[in-house]
């Protein structure tokens, strides 16, 4: 059954196409039944712990303003749909903004508190509870208008070979999706699951953590989150994953 699915997927994902539409498939389909069941069960899914933590962080007053996220926004459910649209272009700041960036802005400008660091527990909790509100909704980022240049840069970054191993993201996730890299089947590199719980990490991680991880594996210069290049890549990945349902908190190997 899994073989048949993989074969079907490979047929769809065969190289030679610039647009990934046909080869798009959530990493969920590589999980195997047991891990799929784990992801699907809200009581067993370890990522749901982070949704709970996020809920508490959402309600906690912070900073000189003494306000919580709830004071300004109401419940986290008011954020439904937001994560499907990120990153997006911020015309005032003339840059792309992802979920972490939005949270950091709110924290410093409105709550007047120290913004949570990338990958800190608090950041993962907040991003997970917010992304979770969009579970089941299709990813739909805007890549035209003012975002067009950043999108083009992200597309280039995905295709460009880099690092001492001289491999591109596309080498693995477009051209060799479905093949095995050591014990691990390479997925189509979709980002509809994030923030997600990865067994290899024994913990939660963001989209940017994944980008950094793959990038470091080919011994390339580190891609710092919150830089134009990393955000452009995130935008391109979100566009590649367009139409897929957001799964956060997903489980991945």
């Amino acid at each position: 059954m899994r073989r048949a699915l993989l074969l079907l997927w490979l047929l769809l994902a065969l190289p030679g196409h610039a647009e990934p539409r046909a080869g798009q498939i959530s990493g969920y389909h590589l999980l195997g039944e047991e891990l799929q069941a784990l992801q699907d069960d809200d009581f067993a899914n370890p990522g749901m712990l982070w949704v709970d933590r996020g809920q508490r962080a959402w309600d906690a007053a912070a900073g000189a303003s003494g306000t919580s996220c709830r004071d300004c926004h109401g419940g986290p459910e008011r954020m439904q749909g937001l994560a499907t649209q990120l990153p997006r272009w911020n015309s005032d700041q003339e840059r792309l903004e992802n979920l972490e960036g939005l949270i950091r802005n709110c924290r410093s400008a409105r709550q007047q508190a120290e913004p949570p660091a990338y990958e800190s527990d608090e950041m993962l909790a907040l991003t997970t509870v917010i992304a979770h509100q969009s579970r089941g909704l299709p990813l739909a980022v805007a890549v035209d208008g003012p975002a067009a240049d950043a999108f083009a840069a992200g597309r280039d970054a995905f295709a460009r070979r880099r690092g001492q191993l001289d491999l591109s993201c596309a080498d693995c996730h477009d051209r060799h999706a479905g093949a095995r890299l050591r014990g691990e089947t390479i997925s189509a590199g979709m980002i509809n699951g994030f923030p997600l719980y990865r067994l290899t990490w024994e913990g939660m991680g963001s989209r940017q953590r994944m980008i950094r991880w793959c990038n470091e594996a080919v011994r390339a210069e580190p891609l710092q989150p919150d830089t134009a290049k990393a955000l452009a890549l995130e935008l391109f990945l979100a566009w590649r994953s367009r139409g897929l349902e957001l799964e956060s908190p997903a489980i991945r190997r």
Partner: protein
Amino acid sequence: MYLPQPAASVSAPLLTCVAGGRPSLRVAATLLAAAMLLLPSAASTADCAPFEISGDRIEQPLAGKVGQAGAGARVAADRQRGDCVICHRLPLPEGRFHGNLGPDLRAVGLRLSPAQLRLRVAANRHLNPESIMPDYCRSDGRHQVAEDYRDHPILSAQDIEDLVAWLSGLDAAEAAP
């Protein structure tokens, strides 16, 4: 299982994203790699050794080194060096966890001569520029290489000769695991 640090660590294992190494081994390997980086290196910033390609071969051993099969097996398994098993099935432990991005090499010695193997390991993209397999003796023409690896080919001439010596003897008969 481990998480690569965001800042460039001294030695990021090749593609360890896939499976963490045993910590003790990793520490040892990291120390070794660090020690190697501290050694004065006469190597230029380009190839691991000068070489001449004729057809689909490199006839002369790189830098005149003599390869040792046993050492070659270790290079192929070593995550800091060859790590060939991420892409190829080889007669090494944990065979079912080896990758299949490249062909099964358990009988490669029956198909390819040492001179052919040498080119494929040293500069495979000379034969197929699109290939996913890196050029192990080259370092030029690369982009955005992490500082610690910049201008260093992935393997040394000795490593590659060791691999050639090992691979040329592989004939599947002894494909154990």
